[in-house]
């Protein structure tokens, strides 16, 4: 068996006195798309924060490509090849689209490659070429999400982490985001995805971890999870909600 690209081993983390993670373990292999599912407060975002070094886990370890990166500073972790697209998009509103993209490229900046990368981003996201010189803050929500993903991709990540990429977007734009994830997956990019929209997420991932109260409750392949877990009951606290599509 090959060693996983990212291995999170029994991490605990807390916000002040509030303990958020009680021992999360997960593995992401190269080329896989993996989802972290669960309701609000289950610890999904906290797990991502612990991986990127924004939050320091109180115990446990994070190994990336065979190297222990636990509690490294975020900028060092980005340079190792992990890019995070944070929840709520967090693009730099006062900077232009061009400047946002240039910032993303700093982690691995080469003048020649930068131009080629830009071209590639314009192919993936034609809207960014149109808006190239506009401040990021004037973009629509969906466009900002595209910009945030493009910015992360400019760093040539080995692992891309998306935190709630469909949050607050219209259904049509949400479709675009999932189509994008599928196409990035076909390019062989490894992705760790946090999503509330479990039904949609399970369509595009290889593997998923279902978190609850800071613990991994169920894990397995996407099909396994679909079979094992009634997704609706997870979100509605165990009461049967007559199947159906649940979108929170």
């Amino acid at each position, binding site marked *: 068996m090959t060693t996983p690209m990212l291995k999170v081993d029994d991490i605990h983390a807390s916000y002040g006195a509030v303990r958020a993670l009680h021992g999360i373990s997960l593995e992401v292999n190269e080329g896989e798309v993996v989802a972290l599912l669960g309701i609000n407060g289950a610890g999904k975002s906290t797990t991502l924060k612990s991986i990127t070094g924004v939050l320091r886990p109180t115990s446990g370890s994070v190994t990336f490509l065979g190297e222990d990166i636990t509690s490294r500073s975020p900028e060092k972790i980005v340079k190792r090849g992990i890019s995070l697209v944070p929840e709520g998009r967090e693009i730099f509103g006062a900077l232009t689209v061009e400047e946002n993209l240039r910032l993303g490229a700093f*982690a691995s900046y080469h003048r020649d490659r930068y131009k080629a990368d830009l071209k590639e981003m314009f192919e993936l996201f034609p809207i960014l070429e149109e808006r190239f010189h506009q401040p990021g803050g004037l973009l629509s929500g969906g466009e900002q999400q595209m910009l945030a993903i493009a910015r992360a991709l400019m760093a040539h990540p080995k692992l891309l982490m998306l935190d709630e990429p469909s949050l607050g977007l219209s259904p049509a734009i949400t479709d675009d985001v999932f189509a994008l994830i599928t196409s990035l997956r076909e390019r062989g990019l490894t992705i760790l995805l946090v999503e509330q929209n479990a039904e949609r997420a399970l369509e595009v991932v290889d593997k998923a971890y279902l978190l609850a109260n800071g613990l991994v409750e169920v894990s397995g392949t996407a099909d396994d999870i679909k079979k094992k877990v009634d997704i609706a009951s997870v979100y509605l606290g165990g009461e049967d909600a007559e199947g159906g599509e649940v979108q929170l």
Partner: protein
Amino acid sequence: MSIIQRSLEWARKHSTAVQLIVPLILVGVLVQMFGSSLLVNVYTFFCVSLMMVLGVQVFMGNSGILSFLHVGFVGVGAYASGILSTPPAVKAMGVPNMFQTLVDLQIPVLPAILLGGIVAAIIAAVISYPMMRLSDAVGVITLFATLIVFHVIMTQWDNVTNGPRTFFGVPEYTTLTVALVGALLMIVLAYWFRESSMGLRVRASRDDRHAAAATGINVVRARYAAFVLSALMAGLAGGVWAHFITSFSPKAFYMSEMFVLLSMVVIGGAGSISGAVIGTTVVTIAREVLRQVEASINNAHVLSFEVFGLTELVMAILMVAVLIWRPQGIIGGQELKLSRFKFKKKEEVSNV
């Protein structure tokens, strides 16, 4: 054809800097050729102020952190350059307690100004190393407290600064040309930094410090670079100022001057270089006009009392008004840019 096109291309790419520099040169030439000596003086002082304001802007505008301290770096540059270039005989007479080594020093003015800037930058590099780690509000208060420390040192260290008394006899050097060249240099420096990768990092940290860190930016290092560069610029401006004014005391680098400097930055818009230039212009004109008004009211003796502080009062009202209605300043965060349309038209004309 290619030279015209290439220079147009270049001008379009750097249109912000070009459209600030060209009018400054034009006005400078006009004032030098046709202006009265008062006008020459006002324009020279404007250019010197612009140097200081751009120094402040490089840190404050890019990082978004209010800095009260920069007027202190202006003072460091002024004293350093003054001490280095004033003739020993003048210093021996004017500054009785000065260290003998300092009295004996004398170097030409231009290197003295440059060294003054470097001294300010070194001091900034030392004191800001811990300071840039502080969070925003705490950082602002610390910068303010440091200005008070600077002021105490300047007023008490009479072996160097002549204490609270006036330091005089600084050789006159700053003409309109010197000040203008200095101001243009500062614009180029501020523009270069703003567009540089380090400048971009600092501006990203202004928007959202944590998002910037998550993008792989070392926020502390980026802010540190901006701070040291801006202190260098403020120090250089201080030197140029010292050789214009030729005698000064620590009072010149304290609250009221800081207020003028900040009003120039805030009124124009701290976020951009264009804002710094416009703010300096507006405040300089307003101050000159108000000073004239104040003087003529007093000379006419229509009032039974002296009008005093009208300038400061109106400036304060102006600043409050800007903060209420245009908190980003007159220009706001984005640089002025000639529309691409206009440039395209010109290009077509040149092709014909």
